[in-house]
């Protein structure tokens, strides 16, 4: 079995799709054509070029990093019961 055939069979198994009729054969034959079609892409000199993962130049917007006491006191006040850092709730399993 050639590398391309092994790769194809692995992809069919991983993709988990039922291929009706002659679709299995057709897709395998077509994959060879697809791979040939991709040759010009592989021939592009990409030395020193970074792969990009976003279609635009946006960056994460991070909130300002400053120390504060948080909202624990407010949360404790809102809870019906609170003890030693834990919320007390009714048991679910008897």
């Amino acid at each position, binding site marked *: 079995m050639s590398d391309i055939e092994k790769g194809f069979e692995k992809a069919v198994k*991983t993709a988990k799709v039922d291929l009706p009729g002659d679709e299995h054969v057709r897709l395998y034959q077509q994959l060879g054509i*697809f791979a040939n079609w*991709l040759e010009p892409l592989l021939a592009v000199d990409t030395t020193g070029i970074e792969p990009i993962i976003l279609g635009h130049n946006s960056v994460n917007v991070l909130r300002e990093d400053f120390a504060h006491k948080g909202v624990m006191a407010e949360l404790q006040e809102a809870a019906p019961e609170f003890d030693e850092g834990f919320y007390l709730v009714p048991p679910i399993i008897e």
Partner: protein
Amino acid sequence: MDLRNLSVCQAAEDIHNGEYTAHDLIEKTLENGSLLNESLNIFIHQAGVDALEQAKAIDLRIEKGEKLPLAGIPVAVKDDICYGVLPTTFGSGGFSDFYSPYTATAVERLMEAGAIVVGKTNLDNMSLGSSTTSSPKGATINPWDNSRAAGSAGAVAVITGAAMVALESDSGGALRQGASSCGVAGLRPTGGLVSRHGLNLHSSSFGQIGVTALTGKNIDAVIQVIAGYDQYDASTLISKDESILEVEPVAIENLKIGFPQSLIEGLEPEFKAICQETINLFKEQGFEISDISLKMLPEALRAYYVIAQAEASSNHARFDGIRFGSASEADNLEELYLKSRSNILGREGRQRSIYGTYLLNKGNFDLYYRQALKVWNLVRREFGLALTGCELLLMPVVKNLPPLLSEGKDLISSWEEDIFCAPVSLSGLPALSFPAGMIGELPAGLQLVGPPFSEKTLTTVSDIVVRNKQLFPHGKA
């Protein structure tokens, strides 16, 4: 009332002035849609009483003095965009009775502005294609030539008066190609300008929600409503405090437009002629046309199909009949997965899932996928460079007439049709397809591409062509 001679702004103004009601406009639109749907196969689901009730509510709000920028405007929504009132099928037999629990942000914004959804338009199975021929409901028919596919049902809705505006998706060019085939304008906005929350994306990197309408001016009226930050979509670029309304169009006097002359050498004479006529018209307007170089389109197209298929295989992994989509009858769990996924994804989806998985396999990942991501970077640089010497680029949209319904194209030939559109998707830049001429009895479009957030300039310049060539089209239906 002929919707094809009515602008979005004029209709909203008429309704505010009491010339007619939103109910009148929606009733007329629904009537047009019902008449044409049987012959052209535009809608998967049409709104009826719901839309009329919404129109009545809009009329009441206007009576009370509210100002709504899109009051009563009938909108068609492609069926890969969620709208909670009608079923959302994604063009798949595995979602034939699915009601989305929420509505896409872009649709919600239109409705808040007074627009009314009149139907969900036809599409290829899971939106994988640009001809609608793989829809379980059958292809949408081109109203100019009934033997050909329309490409986009939203464009047909607009050209025939079954809607004034259509919201559509565009990954590799479906929206722009459909607009070209039907003689309407279609905008793929800057990546991140319009929220994609509620769009069923097969390609996370390239899928966008865009707008189709008769003119650029109509598109502009819609974009101003739907653009902007959305807390449900982290890829929206504009922060909460900014608005598209604050973005000024560039001055169009002495505009410089770049045209890649070498690209059209291989085109049919009729397509070349349309390019030349448009260039001449732009020159008459005082615009400067310069020859620019876009050498990487063939490699860009290949990078698109590597990345898009890899992403489709990943994004569609959840459609298994258990988590999403209806379950097929099966004797065991493995068989249930296989059969359900096969039914949900359809022929094109099965192919993309397998090829996408193949491209991401160990051994192929670096060879194909990582290389495609690097080429994507080079393509973006090339478009950026092309725009350093001019304000806009003028490019073809398609190189052939829309396909005959009887025509079966092989895989590579059908992908090669995207040679002018998919590379623009990689650039992340806004692109507007506009009607530029006729080839026989069929309209053909060109596209203008601009820098990020140049939508207003694109719509203004494209309308110069439409106005000067008196190309306000009238679909024969």
